[in-house]
C-alpha cells in the first residue's frame, strides 16, 4: 500500500515553450501477470489554458483488478514459498485528480487535490506548488508541499479503519543546457505516520524442533520517512532525427530500503508522422530491515514477508509507436514486459524466497491537442 502524494507535477514547464492551448485524451492499460493478477485501467485526462494566466489539469481513472494476490508465505514444504489462499476476486479502484495553476509573470502557483477509493482503502490528498522561471525560462525552480490522508480497511475485517497521514516536500530544478538538451532534477522528502500493515498478508513458519507452527500477521512500523531523488535528461540529435531520454531515481527510506531505477529510451522519428521508441527500465531494491519470509525466534514486533519489501531486481523492456495526424490527433501504442527476480538484483544478494514475477502490459492512448 503506497501513498503517492498529491504533489503537483514538477515538470509543469515540461516542454520548454510548447504552444498548445489544451489537450484531452483517453488511455487504456491492460496488464497481466503470469498466473496471478490482471488489470484493466482506462484513464481519461485533460489540460486546458484559460484566459492566458490559468491552467487546469484533471484526470480520472478506474482500475479493474481480477485475480489473486499471494497472501501467505509458508515454509511447510521446507522452504518459504508464496501461497494463494483466497479465491480469485474482482476489485475496483477509482482515482481522480485536479490541479489549477495561476501564472503571475515568471511565477506560478498551483493547488491540487486527488482522491483514490476502493473497497478497503480511501485516500485524499492536497498539494501546493510554486514555480519560478529564471533567465528567460532557461532555469525553472519548483517547490511543493503535499498532504495525504489515507484510511486502510479490510474486506475480511470490517472493523478495520486505520488512518495514515503523509506529508511530502518537493524541490526541483529544470535547466535548459543547450538548444538540444534539457535536464531536470528533483528531490522529494516524505514523512508518514499511521497504519502500514497489510491486513491480508500472513507468515506461517514451521520449525524442525517444534510441533506447532507460528502464524504471524504482517506488522510494519507506524511511520515511514523516505527520500526520492529523480533526475531526467532529454537530448535531441538532429542528424539522427532522434531523442535520447534517460531517467534515474534513487530512493531510500527508514525501513532500510535502498532502490535505484534507471530508464533509458530512444525516440526515433520515422518521417513527419511516426515515431518509434524502444526503452529499457532497470530496477534494483534492497530489503527492508524487518522483511523475513520466515518468523524468527523470538518473534519480533515488526515483521513482513511481503516480497515487495525484499531484495530483488527488475528488468522491463518496452516499445512505443506514436502516430501524429492533422488537426492534433495523436495515437500511441506501447507494449512492455516486466520480469522481477532475485537474480536481477544489482550486486547479488536477492532474497531467497523471492518468487519471480513475469508480466506483460499494453497501453493504447488517443489524444487530441488544440
Amino acid at each position: 500500500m503506497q501513498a503517492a502524494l498529491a504533489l503537483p507535477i514538477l515538470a509543469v514547464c515540461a516542454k520548454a515553450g510548447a504552444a498548445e492551448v489544451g489537450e484531452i485524451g483517453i488511455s487504456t492499460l491492460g496488464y497481466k501477470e503470469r498466473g496471478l493478477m490482471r488489470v484493466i485501467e482506462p484513464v481519461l485526462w485533460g489540460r486546458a489554458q484559460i484566459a492566458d494566466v490559468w491552467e487546469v489539469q484533471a484526470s480520472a481513472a478506474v482500475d479493474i483488478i481480477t485475480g489473486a494476490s499471494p497472501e501467505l508465505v509458508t515454509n511447510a514444504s521446507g522452504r518459504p514459498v508464496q501461497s494463494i489462499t483466497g479465491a480469485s476476486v474482482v476489485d475496483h479502484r477509482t482515482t481522480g485528480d485536479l490541479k489549477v495553476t495561476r501564472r503571475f509573470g515568471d511565477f506560478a502557483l498551483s493547488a491540487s487535490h486527488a482522491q483514490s477509493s476502493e473497497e478497503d482503502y480511501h485516500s485524499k490528498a492536497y498539494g501546493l506548488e510554486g514555480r519560478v522561471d529564471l533567465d528567460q525560462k532557461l532555469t525553472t525552480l519548483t517547490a511543493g508541499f503535499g498532504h495525504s490522508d489515507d484510511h486502510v480497511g479490510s474486506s475480511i475485517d470490517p472493523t478495520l479503519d486505520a488512518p495514515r497521514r503523509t506529508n511530502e516536500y518537493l524541490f526541483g530544478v529544470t535547466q535548459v543546457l543547450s538548444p538540444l538538451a534539457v535536464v531536470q532534477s528533483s528531490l522529494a522528502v516524505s514523512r508518514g505516520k499511521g497504519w502500514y500493515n497489510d491486513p491480508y498478508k500472513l507468515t506461517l513458519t514451521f520449525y524442525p524442533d517444534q510441533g506447532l507452527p507460528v502464524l504471524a500477521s504482517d506488522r510494519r512500523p507506524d511511520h515511514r520517512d523516505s527520500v526520492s531523488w529523480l533526475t531526467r535528461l532529454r537530448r535531441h540529435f538532429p542528424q539522427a532525427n532522434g531523442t535520447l531520454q534517460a531517467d534515474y531515481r534513487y530512493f531510500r527510506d527508514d525501513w532500510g530500503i535502498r532502490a535505484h531505477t534507471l530508464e533509458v529510451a530512444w525516440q526515433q522519428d520515422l518521417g513527419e508522422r511516426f515515431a518509434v521508441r524502444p526503452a529499457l527500465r532497470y530496477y534494483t531494491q534492497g530489503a527492508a530491515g524487518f522483511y523475513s519470509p520466515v518468523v524468527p525466534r523470538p518473534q519480533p514486533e515488526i515483521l513482513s514477508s511481503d516480497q515487495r519489501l525484499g531484495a530483488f531486481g527488475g528488468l522491463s523492456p518496452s516499445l512505443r509507436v506514436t502516430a501524429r495526424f492533422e488537426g492534433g490527433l495523436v495515437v500511441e501504442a506501447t507494449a512492455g514486459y516486466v520480469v522481477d527476480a532475485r537474480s536481477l538484483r544489482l550486486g547479488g544478494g536477492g532474497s531467497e524466497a523471492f518468487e519471480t514475477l513475469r508480466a506483460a502490459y499494453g497501453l493504447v492512448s488517443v489524444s487530441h491537442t488544440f
Partner: protein
Amino acid sequence: MRALAASILFALSGAAAAVQPGDPLPAVSARELEAPAAPLALGSFRGSVVYVDFWASWCVPCRVSMPALERMYRKYRGLGLRVVGVNKDVAHADAERFLKRVAVSFPLVADGDDAVARAFDVQAMPSGYLVDRRGVVRYVHRGFTDETAAALAAEIEILLKEGG
C-alpha cells in the same frame, strides 16, 4: 565540442547589440518560407513602413500576434504598411502546422541559421520591430498582448503619416 565552437564563432562574428529604437534596420536578407530560392532583402522595403516580426509555432503569444498582424496588414497595406514574418521553427513542418490554423497573407521568411535573429539580437519571442519609411527602427515590441496590438496600431498610423 560543436557547441563550444559555435559559441566562439558567435562571439567572434561580432553579433549586433540588441536593436533599439533609433537604430537603422539591419541590412539582412533571408529566403522565403514557401519559395526557398527567392531571397528577400529587408532593405527592399524602403519607402514603406515595415513591421519585422519574429515568430514560431512554439511561441505561445504568437497565436495572438499573428492574427493581429494579419488584420493590421490588411487594414493598412494600401496606405504603405508592409509586414515580414521571420520564422524561428527548426522544421518547416512545424511552421506549416501553425499556418494551417493561422493563415497570413504577408511574406514569411525562414531563418534556420539564425542569421536574421542574431542581426537583430532578438531578446524575446515574439519580437517585433516597426521601421519608418527611411529605414530607421522606431518602436520595438517584446512579447505580445492585446495592449501591444492597440499600441502598435497607433504607432503604425503615426509612421504612415510621415514622409519617406
